[in-house]
């Protein structure tokens, strides 16, 4: 089968038709998943909002399991594999190494996700996406996990194989691009993740059918989180790669220093996966030494990496803008940025919310002792909706508005609505996650149908403030659901009915990359912003230790 290529008129990239098709199917499956997960999000949201309390317990737990699986696992991983087919073959101008394997992988992922969704909707898997043993689901739920993980693994291997092919066939000289390097980082993390998935789900599947007698609950939690948490680290890494990509597409940014950016990715490769320990900090089966070392990603070096990216991405935007002449004062570059471009709006909101909300809360709750006052309360979903939703999902949404014109070669319908979509989703999640995290600091549990404990033998008194913040969560959540629904509608309508874009340069407006003047361009605006960030971080971090010191003594 000879590879068929086209050259993209807008970017000059050489595009293998198999890569393009694989991107399309993975992206479609991703958007379908976010649609399913989004419907469940609305139902779960309206149940956790005490003023509404929509579903009955069974349906709430079922919808929550469905939401977690479709969002966290299906939407994110389908989209990530699509990104790998872009960052590998397309950015290197290479063919996909194994097109057939690519399709087999996709088919396995699709089959796995269908099996899981069916199991949940049948009522056979009301176990949450974590399915902690000895809680048991029907066996095709675990089989679905195995198929999905193996399928994703094939997609990842295809990426590595493509790197080899591109090098052997000399489609490029020198080093791979920064975005490809970020993709490779995500792929490395993914291999570790999916391997843990196989290690834990194969025995659990056998156990669900009665072939294995007993699976230790502590061991399950350890290995499961070797799957569950790193899959979030793939997100983070893919998101950062998308930040660099969007900065280039929207304002023509160039990484300020490749060495700094790539070293930060290297720190992810080495250390980020240790943070699976975040979930086990108040578990009985592991020692403080293990907890402290792993939860800190080996002395917080992966946090350092995120703090570096959080500086280098805005700095690259600042440099590009200043070189275009927007260099008055500290912030003209930012004030005159393309705020009306949905992808730029998504980029800025993604960086800001990921850093200020997701990052700060994550590192704080992940301190071994502070976890005592956070674990399994609403603080935790509050935290991760600011990382994986406000951060990753929003970045992926921003990217979609380039995937549609460049890959589908259709114009995005209603571009102004798309801009509104990005803001609505970002601000909605900000309010939602802020309300949720704060409600959690009043000990309101996560995964819990009844904030008032009306049906239990004892009725603990709940702080009135907790209800207030759950209301904030509800309102923000509605705005986010609106933003999410618009995303699905705009994307689907554009793909089917958007105006076809002619293959001529300039038909898709891409930001020009300004000339390198050879002189150093200041990044003073960015430096101000990152120090504001650091101040917020320090305050929130130590406030939590103060709150911790107010509870009972325990050791």
């Amino acid at each position, binding site marked *: 089968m000879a590879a068929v290529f086209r050259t993209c008129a807008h970017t000059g990239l050489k595009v293998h038709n198999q890569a393009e098709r694989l991107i399309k199917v993975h992206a479609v499956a991703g958007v379908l998943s976010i649609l399913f997960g989004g419907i469940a999000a609305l139902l779960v949201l309206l149940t956790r909002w005490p003023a509404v309390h929509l579903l009955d317990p069974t349906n709430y737990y079922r919808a929550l399991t469905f939401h977690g699986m479709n969002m966290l696992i299906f939407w994110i991983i389908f989209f990530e594999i699509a990104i790998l087919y872009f960052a590998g073959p397309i950015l*290197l101008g290479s063919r996909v190494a194994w097109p057939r394997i690519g399709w087999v992988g996709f088919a396995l992922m699709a089959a796995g996700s269908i099996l899981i969704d069916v199991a949940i909707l049948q009522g056979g898997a009301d176990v949450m996406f974590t399915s902690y043993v000895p809680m048991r689901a029907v066996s095709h739920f675990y089989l679905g996990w195995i198929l999905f993980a193996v399928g994703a693994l094939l997609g990842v291997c295809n990426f590595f194989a493509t790197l080899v092919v591109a090098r052997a066939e000399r489609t490029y000289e020198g080093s791979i691009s920064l975005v490809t390097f970020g993709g490779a980082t995500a792929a490395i993390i993914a291999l570790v993740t999916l391997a843990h998935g196989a290690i834990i789900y194969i025995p659990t599947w056998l156990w669900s059918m009665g072939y294995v007698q007993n699976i230790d609950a502590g061991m399950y939690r350890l290995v499961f989180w070797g799957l569950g948490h790193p899959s979030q680290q793939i997100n983070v890494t893919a998101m950062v790669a998308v930040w660099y990509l969007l900065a280039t597409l929207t304002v023509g940014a160039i990484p300020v220093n490749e060495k700094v950016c790539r070293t930060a990715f290297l720190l992810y490769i080495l250390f980020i996966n240790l943070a699976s320990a975040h979930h086990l900090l108040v578990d009985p*089966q592991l020692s403080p030494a293990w907890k402290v070392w792993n939860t800190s990603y080996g002395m917080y070096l992966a946090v350092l990496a995120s703090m570096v990216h959080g500086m280098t991405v805005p700095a690259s935007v600042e440099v590009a803008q200043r070189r275009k002449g927007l260099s008055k004062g500290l912030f003209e570059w930012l004030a005159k940025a393309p705020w009306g471009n949905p992808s730029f709006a998504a980029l800025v909101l993604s960086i800001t919310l990921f850093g200020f909300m997701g990052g700060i809360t994550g590192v704080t709750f992940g301190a071994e002792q502070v976890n005592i006052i956070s674990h399994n309360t609403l603080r935790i979903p509050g935290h991760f909706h600011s990382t994986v939703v406000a951060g990753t999902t929003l970045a992926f949404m921003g990217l979609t508005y380039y995937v549609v014109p460049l890959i589908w070669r259709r114009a995005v319908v209603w571009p102004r609505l798309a801009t509104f979509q990005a803001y609505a989703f970002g601000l909605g999640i900000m309010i939602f996650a802020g309300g949720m995290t704060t409600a959690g600091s009043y000990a309101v549990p996560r995964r819990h149908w009844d904030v008032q404990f009306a049906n239990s033998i*004892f009725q603990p008194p709940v702080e009135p403030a907790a209800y207030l913040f759950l209301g904030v969560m509800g309102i923000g959540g509605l705005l986010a659901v609106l933003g999410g629904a618009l995303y699905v509608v705009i994307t689907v309508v554009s793909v089917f009915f958007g105006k076809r874009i002619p293959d001529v340069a300039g038909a898709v407006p891409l930001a020009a990359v300004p000339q390198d003047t050879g002189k150093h361009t200041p990044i003073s605006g960015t430096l101000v912003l990152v120090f504001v960030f650091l101040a917020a971080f320090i305050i929130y971090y130590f406030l939590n230790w103060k709150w911790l010191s107010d509870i009972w003594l325990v050791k």
Partner: protein
Amino acid sequence: MSIQTLKGVWWKKVDPSEKVWLGIALLWCLILFAMMPLWHLKGGQNPSFETYRTTAAMFQAKVDALVQKAKVGEEKGIPVIAPDPKEDVYMLGRLWQWSPVLKLKKGQTYRLHLSSMDLVHGFSLFPLNLNFMVLPGYDYVLTITPTTSGEFYVVCNEFCGIGHHTMVGKILVE
């Protein structure tokens, strides 16, 4: 450009304006790390690592023996015990109940053993917000000192089936 392959050398010197942030960020990360061992040395709230393997039957027997010895009443069908701080205190979680109810004294230190008879549960002291995991097969010993008095509740905060939200126990401190 972030999407172009790079020819030649990109391993170049870092500008001082970036170095400032790199240095300060690294310093902050080391502070973040230092806080945890420091709190183990000086702080009053640390996760315990006194853990034993057990079984539901073994643990139930210990709870029963303690209830026999220290029972002072009953609330909603659950025994209430007032244990002596010198002896070990046992509390079990099962679908969907925490047992027994504890009556503790403020300022006294207790060795509280937690285990589950069936699925994974979450021990959340409400409304104080102190959380630990309770796993079947593990006897987790928390050495706790109540520093406030009043009525406290044990809310299960790990999903444990359809009755999860009804699983609430009680601890009284006087």
